[in-house]
């Protein structure tokens, strides 16, 4: 079992108000799964994604990621290690560094992993080639189309060979054609064994997943895992 969530609660404490966002989430994801999380805004899907992505910790409950237990007390150090080595992120707005070439954007996680420059360059170039961007390695994000930017971001997300690819509305800022090609890439990566978890509004996009989880008011209302099997 790659991911296991047990009785996860998350409250946002804001001045004198406590807002419960996630209420007793129980979820397991097997290695190689492809999960879409759907839900209206305010349903807690982004918060769930943050906890899955080790960007946030639960108020209570346990999250076991590939054998590592994460609780509210987990250290910053541990979380950033997990993010670096086991997870890859793709964002709606790409979040590429401006004035930085595609190649340098892609190799950034390898810099943090302490990989020597030669190898970094080689691996980043290979990842970009795989995304069909071998002619764009020297271009800055400003010179790329939305679809190209997202493919650079995906190359960056997979450069560290993560176990899980987390995507937050990966097609939200793209036209349908570019969105389709991103979905193609996700499918390919999933077939190679990468577990994919993505948040989306779009039912058509969610349809690419093997399993669709519906979230509402911080509670899982439907888990379509069985349907797509």
């Amino acid at each position: 079992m790659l991911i296991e969530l047990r009785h996860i609660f998350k409250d946002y404490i804001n001045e004198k108000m406590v807002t419960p966002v996630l209420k007793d989430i129980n979820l397991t994801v097997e290695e190689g799964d492809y999960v879409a999380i759907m839900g209206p805004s305010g349903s807690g899907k982004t918060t769930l994604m943050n906890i899955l992505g080790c960007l946030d910790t639960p108020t209570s409950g346990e999250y076991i990621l590939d054998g590592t237990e994460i609780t509210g007390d987990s250290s910053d150090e541990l979380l950033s290690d997990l993010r670096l080595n086991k997870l890859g992120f793709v964002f709606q707005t790409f979040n590429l560094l401006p004035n930085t070439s595609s190649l340098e954007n892609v190799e950034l996680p390898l810099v943090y992993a302490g990989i020597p420059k030669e190898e970094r360059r080689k691996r980043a170039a290979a990842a970009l080639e795989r995304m069909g961007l071998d002619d764009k390695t020297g271009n800055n994000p400003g010179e790329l189309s939305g679809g190209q930017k997202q493919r650079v971001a995906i190359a960056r997300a997979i450069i560290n060979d993560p176990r899980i690819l987390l995507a937050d509305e990966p097609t939200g800022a793209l036209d349908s054609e570019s969105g389709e090609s991103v979905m193609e890439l996700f499918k390919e990566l999933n077939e190679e064994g990468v577990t994919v978890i993505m948040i989306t509004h779009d039912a058509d996009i969610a349809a690419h997943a093997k399993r669709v989880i519906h979230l509402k008011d911080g509670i899982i209302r439907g888990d379509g895992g069985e349907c797509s099997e």
Partner: protein
Amino acid sequence: MGENIKMAFRGIKTHKLRSALTMLGVIIGIAAIIAIVSSIKGTNEQIKRNLVGSGNNTVEVGLSQGGMEYEVEYGGIPAGIRPVDEETKKAIMDLSSVENVSLYKKRSYQNNIFYMGQQTSGASIYGVDADYFAVAGLCIKEGRLFSKSDLQKNVKIAVLDEAMAKGLFGTEKAAGKVIDIKGEPFTVVGVVKNISTFEPVIENLQDYETYMNDGQARIFIPITIWPVLYIYDEPENVLIKAVSTDSMTNAGRDAQEILNASIKEVPGSGGMQEGSEEGSSSVKYKANDVLEIANRLQETSRSTNILLIAVAAISLLVGAIGVANIMLVSVTERTTEIGLKKAIGAKKTVIRRQFLTEAVVLTAMGGILGVIIGIIVARVMAAVMQTNMALDIPWMILAFAISMGVGIVAGIGPAIKASNLNPIEALRRE
């Protein structure tokens, strides 16, 4: 580290105007310090050159009383003081700091030298041996110097310096002319000038008094003929050529001690043994050490210099606050970037180091530019005010180190703030 510096440069390049304005504070502070230090050093070196350069590394040891030059003219021959004997001269000669020694007699402020109705005023007459000119750094401009036989034969001949020759003869040839000294005819055989074509920079009256005291016209006659004009067995002054400029003080002090030890104590004669009054009344040899005077002059300007440097340091402090401010703004502005970096696995220390590096690179660049601009400002100042400037390498290195230190101090707060940003909060702000 290399990667960090590269990223820092990219960050600086992305915000060119802002980086330039930030650097300005550091640039002004460092430039001010460098300009001030350079012109202080220049002035000090000028003082030293003015005083030391004129003397050709020579130190005069003469008689003084109560801090003033002793005038045989008015005081007569002081008790117990005889011409310097061979033994004493040899002892001075043997000092390791001494290259050469010459003995001479001297009378200042003489108005009794005539040529065809021309009269000198305030001239100095020197009774010298054959070595004197070489030791004093004088060379022949016209005619010849004294030979050994001139000294033995007691001939009435004289060598003039340029000022004296010009005063008496104008542009006419000096050699061969006969002048009148205290009623005695002397034939001029030559004219000498200083070897070093040195001209002190005179800015005010104080400078004039400091540098010009030996600028009066000089006339040289053989030491052996001295008694014809003045007194037999008159005390002598000692001219010492030190081996180097730095050994001048030692040479002067040691010679002074040897000479004072040679003074014979005469019982019952005025002032010599009365300890309490000794300092003010007794006649003693004293070295006229120009290097020491130069150092004393520099001392007096030190407090002003410290004040100037303090003012420059304050402007550097203001610059540092500017850097801290800009770095804080930069952290806020780049929240998304920081959030992303944390999301893809950058640890706190990595973010902290990145921002600290950026601050240090920024201020170090400011430091380098500040040093360059400081040198330019010092050059311009020296040219406009006709003073000197001299580059001080240790100060430049120090200024550069300070500018980097400013970066660390100003950057540490913002860097910690950046590293503590919550990645979720950071990514949400788009």
